[in-house]
């Protein structure tokens, strides 16, 4: 196994997963000397009735929920964060629980910064200051539709990213009562995002044994449960495995540099407002096809993670990296027609692609060139690789 000359690795959150794990929250809070969390959640989660189940988990504890702030929708902005921070202060809360994914978690992180640093806007951090203090305890309870960034040290607030190790959530609670998907598309999207993140973590030249160790179970779960999860989104086993995969992929991802598919999908998503998952489903196959064409050398960890030991051992050494790409392609294509297959089908205006490629190449710190990005995007526009 190859160990890079230098690497850093951190997976900060405590992950609690499985049956009856919601009931651990009071004791986890107690470990932080917290008694009164503010719950931040989304309207759709309220509507799906998950909040009721969530409240039940706090029965027979001494934890008072300081309020359930359920105003979060598809956008996390400072106005909403200020409202939630106001509620937090009025109620005298001492910790935050984010019930949901994506924007809910982003908002919770922002609220955490606001209340911990006692400020009312984030302009200092937008301008480059770094968060260097311990924040309040933040617990995350994922529901469906992940954006893949919950478990990372990144928060996207008002479309701007702030990265700091203190932004890692402290505890992630994956409970089968919360994870079942709302629809096959949503499960597929979350799965694709996790796959893309794990893929980026393993195909990066600078990956290290620890990121590989975290990405491995993520990919194994994805290859085993994604096809099942999209056909039966309510299945508890599949949903919990996929939620685990999502968290683990994010953990691996936050310790590596973003891959090309991630960058392009993020940029496209900002421009058009369509979720990253849809783009990744299109971009990842084109990226893989491109890698296959260029015969880029990658480690065989990808193959091992996706197909397991038996199949890995049964394959000749030199074929393993390539077979890994094939397996990833096969997995993503098992989604069939669930998500759009080309940018054209998504009706992306073609003239926007040049700009996207340029920004992505810029963000990649010279790892990918503008032309590389363009090639992948063009292919994705036609959807020929899918």
């Amino acid at each position, binding site marked *: 196994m190859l160990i890079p000359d230098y690497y850093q690795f951190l997976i900060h959150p*405590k992950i609690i997963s499985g049956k009856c794990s919601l009931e651990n929250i009071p004791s986890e809070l107690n470990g932080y000397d917290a008694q009164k969390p503010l719950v931040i959640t989304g309207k759709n989660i309220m509507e799906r009735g998950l909040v009721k189940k969530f409240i039940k988990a706090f029965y027979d504890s001494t934890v008072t929920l300081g309020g359930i702030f359920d105003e979060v929708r598809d956008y996390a902005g400072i106005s909403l964060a200020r409202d939630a921070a106001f509620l937090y202060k009025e109620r005298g809360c001492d910790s935050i629980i984010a019930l949901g994914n994506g924007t809910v978690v982003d908002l919770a992180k922002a609220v955490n910064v606001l209340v911990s640093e006692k400020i009312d806007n984030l302009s200092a951090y937008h301008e480059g200051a770094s968060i260097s203090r311990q924040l309040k305890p933040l617990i995350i309870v994922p529901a469906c539709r992940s954006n893949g960034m919950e478990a990372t040290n990144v928060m996207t607030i008002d479309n701007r990213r702030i990265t700091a190790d203190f932004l890692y959530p402290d505890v992630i609670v994956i409970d089968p009562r919360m994870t079942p998907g709302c629809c096959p598309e949503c499960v597929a999207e979350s799965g694709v995002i996790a796959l893309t993140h794990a893929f980026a973590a393993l195909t990066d030249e600078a990956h290290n044994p620890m990121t590989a160790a975290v990405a491995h179970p993520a990919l194994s779960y994805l290859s085993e449960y994604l096809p099942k999860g999209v056909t039966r989104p309510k299945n508890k086993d599949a949903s919990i495995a996929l939620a685990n995969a999502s968290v683990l992929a994010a953990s691996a991802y936050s310790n590596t540099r973003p891959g090309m598919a991630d960058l392009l999908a993020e940029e496209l998503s900002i421009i058009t407002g369509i979720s990253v998952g849809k783009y990744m489903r299109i971009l990842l196959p084109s990226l893989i096809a491109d890698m296959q064409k260029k015969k880029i050398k990658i480690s065989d960890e990808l193959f091992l993670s996706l197909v397991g030991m038996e199949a890995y051992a049964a394959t000749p050494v030199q074929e393993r990296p390539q077979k890994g790409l094939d397996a990833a392609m096969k997995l993503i294509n098992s989604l069939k027609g669930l998500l759009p297959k080309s940018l054209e089908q998504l009706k992306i205006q073609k003239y926007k692609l040049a700009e996207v490629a340029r920004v992505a190449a810029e963000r990649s710190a010279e790892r990918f060139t503008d032309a590389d990005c363009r090639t992948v995007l063009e292919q994705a526009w036609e959807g020929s690789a899918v």
Partner: protein
Amino acid sequence: MLLPSFYDFCCRVKTISGNKALEKIPALLAGMNAYRPLIITDKGVASAGLVDVVKKAMENKLKIGAVYDDVPMDSDYKIVNDAVRVYRQKGCDSIIAIGGGSVIDTAKGVNIVASLGGDNLLDYEGYGAVKRKLKPFVVVPTTAGTGSEMTLVAVITDPDRKIKMNFVSYFLLPDLAVLDPRMTRTLPAFLTASTAMDAMTHACEAYFCIEKNPISDSFAFRAITMISENLLNVVKNPGNLNGRLALANASTMAGAAFSNSMVGMVHNLGHTVGALCHVPHGVAMSIFLPYGLEYNLHRSADIIGEILFPLAGPEVYASTRKKHRAERVIELIRKLNQDLHDATGGKHPRFLKEIYDRNGSPVVPQSMLPVIAQAIMLDGARLTNPEELLPEDARMVLEHAWEGTPLDRKKIKKGGRKVKY
């Protein structure tokens, strides 16, 4: 991959690894607003010149508050209190621990008192006494084996009451674990062997004990790979820095794995033998590991069989039939012990009766075995072993381990249902 019905995993230690890892400490400490660390270490480490290596690597960039090097073999709460005094006197704001298990445990204790105030560690005894973030805490392991840098437990003795106090809290986890091959370069071959086998045991037990979970499995898997690929090589060529780095990585990853999935009977026996006969931990581990696997074979044969993959490589794994894999694993571990025994010129013992102290007398007399067997009931690792382990079972295992003969598998009592993860 196995999906347990429940698991938790926490390993919030930032690991930095590499040939120049030590040089990164000042910048990372500055990121946590710490600029004046106290170095805690023991005499052995200090005399080996390792503290100087660290100091040199950080020169000019960081002001060292003080170096405290009085940590004994078994960490003691009085030493902790003493170190806290030094910490306060010199106005330090963070801690760097350089050393093995006891140094790290002592430093954890120092961190508790230094961060939470007071001057006596005993005030913080008991579960859940530590409820907030402590001072920045860096660990530079020098043994590549214990994995203490990844555990949330600090075992500190109270010589007055003659008990071992357990301090357990996620806040005890260090902020940084620094893996630099320079720190393990001077480790003698037989110690390298036994510490690495310690890490191997952590990894193997993490892999098959009942609290196993996907992340710890994956960490253990890679740890086993790295150890089996590098151990013999490093023992034969002590200057192999890449191999050293791999072992350090493996040890830390095994630490991350076992601190989350707990260990089983190998540790149970090892702890007991260590406590009663002062057998070095690593040595006990390497001796009991094959027996631990053998004892649990009927319970989790497939899982133990999977260990063959990292241990021997995919080719051997593929060419071995499924039902023989677990046995092959045990065989290979025994062979590894044998190889180490040969490579160290007999300094690496294979059975209990081969362990001698400095005077050349055997450390574990056969007469002690029943006492040891009875005493296994005092150790918690018994609980997480897949198969039930009672004193009479332990005695049977111990006798075989003493003699160096494989277990008579017919003698192992069976009768449980399938292990539920």
